[in-house]
């Protein structure tokens, strides 16, 4: 367990939401917050991301956008996605 990177409480919430939404077999606590969400890492694709965005919208009340310069940055990892959601919530 010691080599696992600790998730912050909000990151763990988001990881749980992603795992439940997509019925992934991964354990939310074992997700590396810095690993890529797309492709390798969690192995998500654009259809998954769409489902995650919908769940995020229902749970956090924020609408994700992709067509700005953050396009690639937001979905880099669990951590970047969570940071983006927290910023939207605070705005």
């Amino acid at each position: 367990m010691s080599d696992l990177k600790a998730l912050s409480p909000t990151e763990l919430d988001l990881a749980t939401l992603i795992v439940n939404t997509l019925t992934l077999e991964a354990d939310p606590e074992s997700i590396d917050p810095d690993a890529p969400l797309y492709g390798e890492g969690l192995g998500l694709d654009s259809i998954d991301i769409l489902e995650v965005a919908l769940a995020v919208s229902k749970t956090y009340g924020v609408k994700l956008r992709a067509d700005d310069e953050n396009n690639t940055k937001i979905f880099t990892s669990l951590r970047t996605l969570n940071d983006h959601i927290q910023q939207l919530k605070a705005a």
Partner: protein
Amino acid sequence: MTILSTSRLPLLRHGSPDALFAWHDGRPVTVRAYLAAVHDLARRLPDGAYLLNLCGDRLGFAVGLGAALLRRQISLHPPNDTPDTLRQLEEGYPGLICLTDAGVRYPGMACVDALPRDGLDSLTAPPEDADLAFPADQVAAIAFTSGSTGRPMPQVKSWGTLVRSVHGAGTALGIARLGPAGLVGTVPHQHMYGLESVILLALQHGLVLHGGRPLFPADIAASLDDLPGRRILVTTPVHLQALLADGTALPPLDFILCATAPLAPQLAIDAEAKLGAPLHEIYGCSETGQLAVRRTSATAEWLCIDGIRLRQDEQGTWASGDFLDGETLLADVIELKSDTRFVLHGRSADQVNIAGKRSSLAFLNHHLNSVEGVKDGVFFMPREGESGTTRLAALVVAPGLTAETLLAHLRERIDPIFLPRPLQFVDALPRNPTGKLPREALLRMLDDPRRE
């Protein structure tokens, strides 16, 4: 009707050079500016017979289409851009030129930016005789379907076939009634449906093409907001479902077009009620292009577009048409009402369609069993879930492999949408005495891999 091979069909059908052609990066682009970009790219393209148009930007893609036609280069439309696909294309089409968005490069391939580095304003207008038209029999594109042998199967498309197919569909849908409406699409244009119903529909019906490819509901709303006049949304059941579930308010719509997989009637009725516009579906496949349309809230029956005919024999349903070469066996189970009207009853057993991408289980199994270390393995569709997109499952006998290694190998070879989820390692597949794999046995093993 016999079409003379010498007939020429125009690249676009907008009213005048000053007409709006596209909405790109928040700015209007006129027909004149588009044609200038086509001529500019045609000059910059190196010599070569084939062009791989990988532009994500719709304007760049449309410029690439025009420039390729002008240079008589054939555009390739692979089903995906996995490293394995690109490698196979390079082997099959030596000297392949790769057309990309600004600055995007694919290792080992000759890449050219589709749009001018200094922007469209840096170009001078093309000469007056710039009304571009191309011979109906000029080979314009090659689309690929996944053959069961593991190699993509090329489908050659002449300019005449593409244009007449899109014209037929546009006429059946009554697109002309909308005038120079704006079009926002959520589908990739490398996909045949996107090529026809986003790029070619806009070119051939004088529509205003939105340059973006929005995915999230809020992005779709913002893209539609950019457009000044009437609005057409071209989408898929998956995107439409997300849009309705999310509840994002959209600007007024005039027309919704949906394809890639049949839409549930209730979803179509909901969409019309919530989005306030008629929703039509298009049915087709990579082999034939667009074949039929229906207004889903009104009827389950599909009406063939003008010139398309269907017939059945013991093998299945065959499609032919005035602008198609020969007959094509369709991969779906079809009930014919007449030679131009039919009801769809799902796909043939070997075919899978996930979020609009088609493949065959034979193709996927071929790749799975080609991975070193896999002794036996099978893909299948598990029971479909209540919501979301159901993925394929796979049972694999591969004692020396980890899931990560196997998935990394598969990702090289097949579209990520078909990657197995779940992927389960087992000691042996539940083959019956004749070596077949009964679906019920696969489902049982998926539920409990230890049970035989």
